[in-house]
């Protein structure tokens, strides 16, 4: 299909159009959107974050009381737990509503890309409260800035430290390690090298993993927040990729991380990952090269790298190389419907069944990525018989709600603009009932590719 520049910008680089707003605009505007997003308010700010953690502690206490006590304590526990769940669910709805409403679709996509790159999945029940604020605290402020700042923010966030066991890693020769006879946990160190920076097959060995693990000791948590604990930090000097760093020194560890962020292998790894995410499962090598060189020239200035992506002709080829993930499809459907924030929530037109529960059914519940490597990218992972059935069921349910507010032919145009194929437009207009026309569009390759 051939589509104009704005359609490509909105579908490939954005989250789909809204009927009540302009599309993505040109690259300059998209970059300004990135800066606006980075400065935007957090869904979970400092105070809300502390309140959440306090609530987790209340639930824990109530649970203890309930185990020891009777009926009244059990009721109290159940209601405390319900309150916390409501609050966490409200954050998920709010993040969905924000993505559905944003004028900066591209920026939102970038934030989601980086959140996925530094995936944190929920590991244990109390972890939810840390994961809820993670994207807004560690990722979004840095989307227009430097990769190394994002990296160091991630490594100092409790959600990540808990997820990859860093808060359980002790320098064997540290005070706490000796006292408690505990040792290194290499989990975060390994993933930092393999997934977050140099990439699998990158120029590092097991000795580098161990050195980084030693340098990371002390990066721990306390009261649900990041805390550098010198008592856990391994003393000595450690060679990472041939450069020696002092252990038990937070600043030294951060400079080691900055060096990793600027490394040519990191540039290459991230350049390819960006191209895969936005353009094609098998992206043009020239595009990857261009992004990697820009990364090296600017030492990982994300605005500059993204500008290089948007400036490259290979990024503007025909649409359809990628499949929308369930989250992308849901957000695009909400945007095309012009759904307002008040409508996206447990009591709104777009309630749990159409949003959070549908994502779980389609295999992409919030904060449930299968591993630290994030959600799969390839089309074949998502478009399976079972995956297609889940999309069809969701499409049918959405269709019933959409039919109440908009004609399916108008909705199809609102959702896809000139990327709507004549065949799909005709099929939508021929559906026996309005809701089926909507469902047909939402299940079509036209809608589910970008």
């Amino acid at each position, binding site marked *: 299909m051939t589509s104009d520049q704005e359609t490509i910008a909105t579908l490939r680089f954005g989250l789909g159009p809204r009927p009540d707003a302009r599309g993505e605009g040109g690259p300059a505007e998209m970059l300004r959107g990135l800066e606006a997003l980075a400065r935007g308010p957090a869904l979970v700010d400092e105070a809300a974050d502390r309140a959440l953690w306090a609530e987790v502690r209340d*639930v824990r206490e109530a649970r203890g009381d309930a185990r020891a006590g009777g009926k009244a304590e059990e009721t109290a526990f159940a209601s405390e737990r319900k309150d*916390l769940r409501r609050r966490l669910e409200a954050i998920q709805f709010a993040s969905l509503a924000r993505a559905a409403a944003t004028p900066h679709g591209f920026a939102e996509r970038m934030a989601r890309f980086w959140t996925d790159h530094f995936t944190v999945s929920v590991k244990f*029940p109390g972890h939810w409260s840390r994961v809820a604020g993670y994207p807004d605290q560690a990722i979004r402020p840095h989307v227009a800035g430097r990769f190394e700042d994002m990296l160091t923010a991630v490594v100092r966030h409790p959600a990540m430290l808990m997820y990859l066991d860093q808060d359980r890693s002790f320098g064997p020769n540290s005070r706490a390690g000796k006292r408690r006879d505990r040792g290194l946990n290499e989990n975060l160190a390994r993933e930092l090298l393999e997934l977050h920076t140099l990439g699998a097959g990158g120029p590092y060995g097991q000795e580098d993993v161990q050195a980084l693990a030693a340098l990371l000791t002390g990066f721990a948590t306390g009261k649900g927040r990041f805390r550098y604990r010198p008592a856990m930090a391994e003393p000595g000097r450690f060679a990472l990729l041939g450069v020696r760093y002092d252990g038990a020194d937070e600043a030294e560890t951060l400079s080691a991380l900055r060096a990793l962020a600027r490394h040519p292998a990191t540039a290459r790894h991230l350049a390819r990952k960006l191209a895969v995410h936005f353009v094609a499962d098998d992206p043009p090598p020239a595009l990857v090269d261009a992004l990697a060189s820009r990364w090296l020239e600017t030492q990982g200035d994300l605005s500059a790298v993204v500008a290089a992506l948007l400036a490259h002709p290979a990024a503007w080829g025909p649409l359809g190389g990628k499949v929308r993930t369930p989250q992308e499809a849901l957000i695009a459907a909400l945007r095309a419907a012009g759904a307002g924030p008040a409508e996206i929530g447990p009591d709104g037109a777009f309630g749990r069944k159409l949003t959070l529960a549908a994502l*779980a*059914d389609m295999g992409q519940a919030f904060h449930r990525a299968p591993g630290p490597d994030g959600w799969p990218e390839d089309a074949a992972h998502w478009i399976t018989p079972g995956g*297609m059935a*889940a999309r069809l069921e969701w499409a049918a349910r959405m269709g019933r709600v959409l039919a109440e507010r908009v004609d399916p032919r108008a909705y199809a145009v609102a959702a896809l603009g000139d990327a709507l194929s004549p065949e799909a437009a005709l099929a939508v207009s021929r*559906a026996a009932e309005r809701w089926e026309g909507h469902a047909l569009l939402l*299940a079509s390759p036209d809608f589910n590719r970008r």
Partner: protein
Amino acid sequence: MTASALSRRALLRGGLTLGCSAAAFPLATRVTFAAAPGDNRLVVIVLRGALDGLAAVGPYEDRDYRAMRPTLATHPDRGGLDLDGRFALHPRLSPLAPLWRRGELAVVHAVSTPYRDQRSHFDGQDVLENGAQHADGRMTQGRDGWLNRALSHLPGARAETAIAVGRGSMLLLDGDNPALSWAPDSDLTLSPQTMDLLRAISARDPLFAAATAEATEIDAMVDGMVAPAPDMAPPVGGLDVGSDDAGDMGGPMQGDRPERIDARSLAVLSAEMLRGESRIAAFSLGGYDTHRKQTATIRKPLEQLAEAIVTLKAGLGPEIWGRTAVMCVTEFGRTARENGSGGTDHGTAGAMIYAGGALSAARVRGRWPGLAPSDLYQDRDLMPTDDLRRHAAWTLRALFGLPGSALERDVFPGLALGDDPGTLA
């Protein structure tokens, strides 16, 4: 929702008639007589939340058992089914008694995965399904499921060979080898005319065309599984089985995890798929995390387990059941002693439950470590005396002839197969 969809859902959850014609198996007919990986069948049931093996199969002759479990001991005096003079089956599993008498039920006691000490459901289930060797909960490099890796070594395996039944993904069967996944209550409610339109617009996109066609076929097959019964009452909502520990401390209310589907529906669809082209089915049951008032909270989950097995047997029919092994596994066991609130906490070793006509004998297997405080793991848990993965490996070997090298290197990296436990004939 259309009327037919409603009644079908009701049937899947209520009383239904099993058995159907060959016409109900479009997948089977399409690929008939291609080289299939043998005639044996495997069902893996993952019991999420950590089943209390010491309650499910109580070592009532162990002299420390009753003292450790004043209210939670399973004993013939309390309605438990005496299996062999040493162990008793929990009363809520008594629907399985006829299987025991026919040599179609077995238990392996005091087994665990290599996972130790942290006792997290999340990590424990990851290790259980990934099959890794690591005590700390780390997964293998590929982060895939051992049952998926096993498919690499099954000659003639196709996507239809294995199916994960239920909503959402199941790590056990996730990986590079194609496998089906389907939820018994998933239902394509679009009219046939609309589906025709969808097929038409998907025709130019092979990926969407194939997935849509296959989804429609499976849906038709599931529809064909049950005879219409228009006067069936609609299903009652809220299928949650017991408490889901995963959300115990503040996961969002719904939408966090796919809704639970009842055991019977899972077993019905599994059986139907296994009567067709499939050789392996896997599904999960939940609610086993019984920290409080276990006498009450374990009832329903055990009933669901028994119902799943009995339904599988009925659905498969005598001939296929004779070639089937059902293997029930859980992430870890629970504490030997009951806690202060009439429940048990996360432990280490537990029990595997086997059923099926492919078993060699009704027997409680495994080396019993004893429950004296010095025999416990860390003075709190039943001591693991064998690796659960070893039993899973021998099961794959007995049913599908997987070579030992593949089992020790790829399916369960680092495993030493050791001697055949002899659970399967």
